[in-house]
Each structure stands twice: as structure tokens, then as C-alpha cells.
């Protein structure tokens, strides 16, 4: 019984209920909302934010943050274009190299954070400026266009009736869920967020875990960049600007504690979907973009308030 109530008042459950309510309300508001085509399309649109939100969940659970994801995205997008058009590599090689570059960018974040012990917020605030600057410098502010058709398949095509990038997203999300829940890596992630010193004293690989998480964050940001470039068939150095706030909103809306130690990938996914259907549903029922922004802000507070109030019954 106690276990049931505990599950019921989990933040994730509350969020799930909010999500279902939102679905109903939106579907009642507009008959164009609850259609397979629209929902799949919305899923396509949220893929980049969603991809990055998965490693960001890990990052935030360790008590850290990665503000540089948007800049890494911009840098990697630019690198695809530059490697392909200016250096003349085959596009697939350019993509590979860009993924490597993103991974290195994340790795650099990790090194600054673990070796030099710079707090993550400051470290990634600095690399936020640095990576964006590199993107601008390398591209000389020129965009690259004219990608071959096969490349558009990733961002604009479908496999078995489902947008291609959704398969990729599902893969990453499932991997994220599995790693966080079931593996030693996931357990270590939580332990770091709850008490880093104790984790260290227990012989858990604290530094290596953090390094890997930031590296993964860089890699997935690069992956998101590729998906993005393929979806819009162009590269610009300002791509991904400001995406970090969207990603963080999804993750914290999903119940991951910004202080670390608590959170689930499932929560992040629900948070993400909730945000997306609100944006879409409100727009379909005639609310303008700025109004939608206000509503999302309010929902964020309400969700946390409700789970706080209910959580108080649960905790003691």
C-alpha cells in the first residue's frame, strides 16, 4: 500500500497525469491536434531537444549542468558543412569527423570539470562562448547548403511510417533509461549527485563517470546537430542557440533535481512531450507563441508545486 502511494505521488506520475490531461484538453480544443500525422510531426520537431535532454538528465543528476550543448551543436553543424564543402571530404566522412569533434568538445568540458575542478556551470558557461565563437570563426559566418538528397532522409524522411530521427531518438532514450536504471554506471551517477565524497570513498569511479557523461553530452549534441542539419538542409553557425534552456526546462520539468541525485529519463521524456504538445496544442487552438511561452512557464511552476505538496506527505 505504502509502495503504491509512493509511486502515485512521484513527480513523474503527477507529470504523466498532467500530460494526459493536457492531451485531452488540447484534443478537445482542436480536432487537428490528436491525429497521427500531427503527433508524429511534433515528435520529429522535438527530436533535437529530446536527444540532448537524455545525457543532460545524467549531467544534472550528478549535480552538474552543461550549458554548452547549443554551442556544440552549432560547432558540429558548421563542421559538417566545412568538412564537406570546403575541405572536400565525402559527406559521410564529414559527419563522422563532426561527431568526433562534438565528442572532443564534450570531453574538453569533462576535463575542465574533473581535472581542474571548475564548477560545471562556470566551465560550460565559458565553453558556451568558446564553442559558439569557434563555429563563427570557422564558418566565417557563411552558411553551407545544397546537401545531397540521401542526407535529407535522416531529418525529413520516414522509416516504416515513423520519422527517421525518431528511431534514433528512441534508441538513445532506451539506452539512457537502461543505463541509468540498471547499470553500475547509472548507480554511480546517482551516488555522485547525492554525495560525491562518499562515492569517492566507496571506490566508485567518480571522475571517469563524470568525464564520460560530459563526453556523451558532447557526442549526443553533435548527433542532434546532424539531425538538425539534415532536417533543415542548411548549416549556420547560430544553430542551436539557446537550446540549452529548452533542454534544461524539459529535464527539470521531468522531475530531475537540479541539486543532483534524483531524476529519471522517463520523467525527462514526459517533460519533453508535455512541453511540445503544449506548444503545438495551444498554437492550434489559436494562442500565439508568446502566450504559449507564458503558459509553459506557469505549467512548470504548477507541476513542481503539486509534486512538492504531495511529496511532503510522502517524505516523512
Amino acid at each position: 500500500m505504502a509502495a503504491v502511494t509512493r509511486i502515485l505521488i512521484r513527480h513523474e506520475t503527477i507529470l504523466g497525469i498532467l500530460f494526459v490531461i493536457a492531451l485531452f484538453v488540447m484534443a478537445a480544443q482542436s480536432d487537428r491536434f490528436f491525429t497521427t500525422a500531427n503527433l508524429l510531426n511534433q515528435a520529429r520537431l522535438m527530436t533535437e531537444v529530446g536527444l540532448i535532454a537524455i545525457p543532460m538528465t545524467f549531467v544534472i543528476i550528478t549535480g552538474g549542468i552543461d550549458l554548452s550543448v547549443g554551442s556544440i551543436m552549432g560547432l558540429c553543424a558548421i563542421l559538417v558543412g566545412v568538412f564537406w564543402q570546403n575541405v572536400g571530404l565525402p559527406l559521410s566522412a564529414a559527419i563522422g569527423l563532426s561527431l568526433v569533434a562534438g565528442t572532443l568538445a564534450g570531453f574538453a568540458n569533462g576535463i575542465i570539470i574533473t581535472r581542474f575542478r571548475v564548477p560545471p556551470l562556470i566551465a560550460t558557461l565559458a565553453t558556451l562562448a568558446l564553442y559558439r565563437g569557434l563555429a563563427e570563426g570557422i564558418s566565417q559566418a557563411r552558411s553551407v547548403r545544397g546537401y545531397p538528397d540521401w542526407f535529407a532522409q535522416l531529418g525529413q524522411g520516414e522509416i516504416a511510417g515513423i520519422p527517421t530521427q525518431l528511431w534514433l531518438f528512441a534508441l538513445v532514450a532506451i539506452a539512457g533509461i537502461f543505463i541509468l536504471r540498471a547499470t553500475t554506471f547509472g548507480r554511480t551517477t546517482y551516488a555522485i549527485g547525492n554525495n560525491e565524497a562518499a562515492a569517492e570513498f566507496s571506490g566508485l569511479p567518480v571522475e571517469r563517470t563524470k568525464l564520460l557523461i560530459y563526453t556523451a553530452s558532447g557526442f549526443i549534441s553533435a548527433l542532434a546537430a546532424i539531425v538538425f542539419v539534415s532536417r533543415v538542409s542548411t548549416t549556420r553557425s547560430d544553430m542551436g542557440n539557446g537550446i540549452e534552456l529548452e533542454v534544461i526546462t524539459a529535464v527539470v520539468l521531468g522531475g530531475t533535481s537540479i541539486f543532483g541525485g534524483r531524476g529519471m529519463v522517463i520523467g525527462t521524456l514526459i517533460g519533453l512531450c508535455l512541453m511540445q504538445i503544449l506548444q503545438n496544442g495551444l498554437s492550434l487552438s489559436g494562442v500565439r507563441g508568446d502566450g504559449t511561452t507564458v503558459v509553459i512557464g506557469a505549467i512548470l511552476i504548477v507541476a513542481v508545486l503539486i509534486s512538492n505538496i504531495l511529496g511532503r506527505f510522502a517524505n516523512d
Partner: protein
Amino acid sequence: MKSRSFHVVGSLGQEILLVLVILALFAFVGWVNPRFVSENNLTSIFVGNAYIAVAAIGMSLVIISGNIDVSIGALIGVLAVISGLLVTNGYPIWFAWLAPLIIGSAINTLLGCLIAYARVPSIIATLAMLSILSGGLITFTGGQWISGLPSGYQLAQFRLLNIPSPVWFMIGMTIVAALLMRYTAFGRSVYAVGSNPEAARASGIGHASTVVKVFAIHGAIAGVAAVLFATQLQVIQSTTPVGLELVIITASVVGGVSILGGVGTVVGSTLAAILFAAIGSSLIFLNVSAYWLKAVQGVLILATVLADMARRRRTG
């Protein structure tokens, strides 16, 4: 009392480091291009960015108390517009100067209550506030800029002893805030609450009331920043500068305020704000290719942060 002076130097380390970096920067760029250190240019560096330094004072208080505010940029935008609307609608000029302080304080008191009493983590509450304020601003103004400001409204263009008023505000408020933080029971309780909320409670320091007060002060300071922002030019833009909150937070943390709470001074954040302004200007003077400007900025921030970490490790 050798140890005493050692500790004082130790705690001021970041400030001294920043002063040295600023002096070195001025000396170097001035050597390359003497116009950089002309009175005119120094004034414009200070004046054009004073509102950032002022806002960073409030931000430092918030971060020292163990919180963060990502809605500050939006708040400044909203308050600037309110001030402009008041004055163009015939309210007295002094009222248009004063109202942003009061309204900013009121909005942030609400925010503070949400954080302190309803226990919504500050990053979430302010992330939500960011959405609400920025969305609401557009809804309200419809994107129209405010022009036709009466003469005499441009507070930021006034001069006293031939020094523009923003500089006075920046210096005066920094000093007052520094004294407040060091010599009043309230100031010390801000450190206490940020250092260990649990212990603060046990010491009879009201955690919630301290946080609410911090946010109220922060809101009033944001009001001053907004007035400086609004009165610099003949028009008031109705959107917030992109990434203003990141600039302000960066100034605070590079100024030595620990993101973990309980550590830092407002003098440091003001110096850091000056440093960033100087960097922005100096890169133009140094003819750094504009495309690489952001990258160089990023490297400089990173270098400052790493130097600080090295210093901290040395002094233990």
C-alpha cells in the same frame, strides 16, 4: 596578526586577480592603440555596461544565498518598458524612475516566496518566470518600441563632476552592497543561508525570510539596472537583449561568487562586469577578426576561471 591579513588577502584573491587582469588588459591594449585608454573610451566602456554590473550585484546576492536567477534579463526588459510607458503616458519622470524599483521588487518578492515557502528550486522558478515575463512582454507591447521619450528622462546621460551617472550608480551601489553584505546581520545571514540552510535554521536565521529579502533587493536592483538600460538612448526596445542573463551570471561567478552558495563578494562581480566590457571593446581595438571575437572572449573567460582555480588551489 599575520594570519589575519593572510586570510583577508586570501578572501580577496579573486578581486585582486581581476584588478590585475583588468590593469594588464588596459596596459596592453593601450600600448597597442593609445586611443583605447582615452577618457572617452574608458567612459564608454563603463557607461555602456554599467547596467550589467549593477544587475550583477543583485545576482551575486542571489547566488551567495544559494539560489540562481535566470529570469533577470527578462525582468530588466519588462521594467524598462514599464518605465518608458509610464513616462510616455504622462506620469512624472521621477515616478517612471522609481516605479521599476518597486515593481521589480514586488515581482521578485513573489518569486522569492515561491522559492522560499513553496520550495520550488530557484532555477525552476526563475526559468518559469523567464518564460512568463518574456512571453508576457511581447503580448503586452506587440513588439512596438517606445519612442518619444521626454527630455530630462535620460537619467543615464546625466553627469556629475563630469562623470556619467551610470558610473556613479555602479560604484555607489557596489560599495553600499559590499558594506551591507559585510557589516549587517542580514548580509551575514545571506552567507549563512547559502553556506548551510539547515544550520542557518538551527541558528535561528529564518531561511525563508532571508531568501525572500534577497530576492526583493535583487528585484529593486534590477529596477535600477532597468532604468539605466531604458534611459541610455532615445528609444526603449521592447525585447530583452539575447543572453543578458548569462552575461550577468557570468559576471557574478567569474567575480568569485561560488555557484554553490555561501562564498563571494559583490566587488568581484562588478570587477568582472568591467572586465567583460573591456574585453569586448579591446578586441575591436586589437583588430581581432570579428569572426573570431566570440571565440577569443570564450578563451579569455576560460583563462580567468582556470587562473582562479589555480590560485584557489595554491592558497588551499
